[in-house]
């Protein structure tokens, strides 16, 4: 016998997995658009450490000269990104799931302990519910990034009609740079997320697919109550 515990509600799993192809198309079409004015780099003065993106990279992925295609994809899939994101956020608020995600007062301190634990420096973890403090901070940050993605995107999409939004974000060119930086952060999040999920293992991954996790217990206690006293008084034995 196995004891399973509900972890992720069905709605959250749908939002999560829908986001994957939607973001993939948004990032891909974004790269087709960005190529037409690929000015960003890491470096100073004439020294460039990393160009976004190297020509070989663009050629390997067949990115050049596809601006029109990129824009038509981007401005269709943006609706799916926004609808999925807003429904997810509303669901968090109304289902009270936000209590399990938004970081609490001690989050920073606890997140540090989680990091020490993950680096095998510390043995114990602070007590947690669904997510530990580091996860709460990461997942909340990614929700914020989603909002910023929408805002910076709108600012460069309609800089005249939404002139005030464009101004708040530091002007047209800054908004474009911010939109790009958040995309890079999304990619980094994705990388860390996938690695962490691989480290966490099958049971955790299965949680996002089936909704439940199997809890390891030696004995499954059955409290005798008026309703469930077994007739033969046979205790089920755990086989996990």
């Amino acid at each position, binding site marked *: 016998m196995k004891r*399973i*515990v509900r972890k992720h509600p069905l709605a959250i799993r749908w939002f999560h997995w829908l986001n994957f192809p939607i973001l993939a198309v948004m990032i891909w079409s974004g790269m087709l*658009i960005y190529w*037409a004015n690929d000015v960003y780099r890491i470096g100073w003065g004439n020294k460039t450490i990393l160009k976004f993106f190297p020509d070989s990279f663009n050629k390997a992925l067949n990115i050049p000269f596809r601006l*029109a295609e990129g824009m*038509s994809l981007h*401005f*269709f899939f943006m*609706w799916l990104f926004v609808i999925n994101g807003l429904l997810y956020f509303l669901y968090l608020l109304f289902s009270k799931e936000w209590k399990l995600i938004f970081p609490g007062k001690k989050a920073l301190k606890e997140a540090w302990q989680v990091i020490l634990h993950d680096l095998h420096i510390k043995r114990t973890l602070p007590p947690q519910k669904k997510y530990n403090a580091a996860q709460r901070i990461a997942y909340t940050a990614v929700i914020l990034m989603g909002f910023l993605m929408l805002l910076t995107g709108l600012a460069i999409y309609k800089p005249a009609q939404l002139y005030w939004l464009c101004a708040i974000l530091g002007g047209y060119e800054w908004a474009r740079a911010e939109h790009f930086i958040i995309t890079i952060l999304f990619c980094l999040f994705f990388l860390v997320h996938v690695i962490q999920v691989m480290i966490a293992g099958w049971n955790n991954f299965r949680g996002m697919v089936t909704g439940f996790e199997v809890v390891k217990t030696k004995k499954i206690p059955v409290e005798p109550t008026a309703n469930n006293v077994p007739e033969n008084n046979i205790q089920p034995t755990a086989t996990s």
Partner: protein
Amino acid sequence: MKNKELILTSAQVRNRTLLSLVFLFSFFGICVAGWKWLQKQPKEKSALKPLRKALDANESIFLGMFNNNHLSKTYPKSLAVPRVRVNGNYGLNEDFDPATWSLQLVKSAGDTLLISLDEIKKLPKTEIVFDFKCIEGWSQVTHWGGVKFSDFVKYYGLEEQTQLQFAGFITPDEDYYVGIDMKSMMHPQTMLCYEMNDKPLPLNQGFPLRLIIPVKYGVKHLKRIGRMYFSNQRPPDFWYERGYDYFCGL
């Protein structure tokens, strides 16, 4: 699965897991099939048909929300760049003779008015320093002078024409052409432009007369206007035919 905890046999756990995995892989399969279906769709004006429909739907949404009081940000003259980027020379045929140029204003079929540059310069002059935005993603603060399109409309009595939905522009050599919705044309920052940085337009910036329309990407700022006309159907548009959005509104 209402209760928070359940006790199941290993077989039940396995079956539930398998069922969910089948759902997940079907979902990925549908995504891949949907992507392949999309790529196989016929094209309309060089864009995949469903995406073209989405662009047109976006146009009606954002044109519906279009507000003439929302202006592109303007800058002091001192911030305008001295060397203005030249991007594209479609429609700027070398054979062009400025001496014989006049604007052909098609008021209706068979009623075309010829207007010289001097006549246009007599209309009230307006200037703008704004961040010119190219569809490629770059932008540049530039300084332009000319006549507000709405003033031009008043002077030449085009009230009837501007009741139509679109204005069309075409270069003298007919190689480049754009169509623009009337709301954007009547925007107070839209102008028929004959000066750049306080000097007459250079040839490569559209001398004698070009369009400056800050609520649109640069592709719509047609250089060297030959003919202007009005229509309820979308006038032909060079980059629209090459897969871009017709609206291109900012």
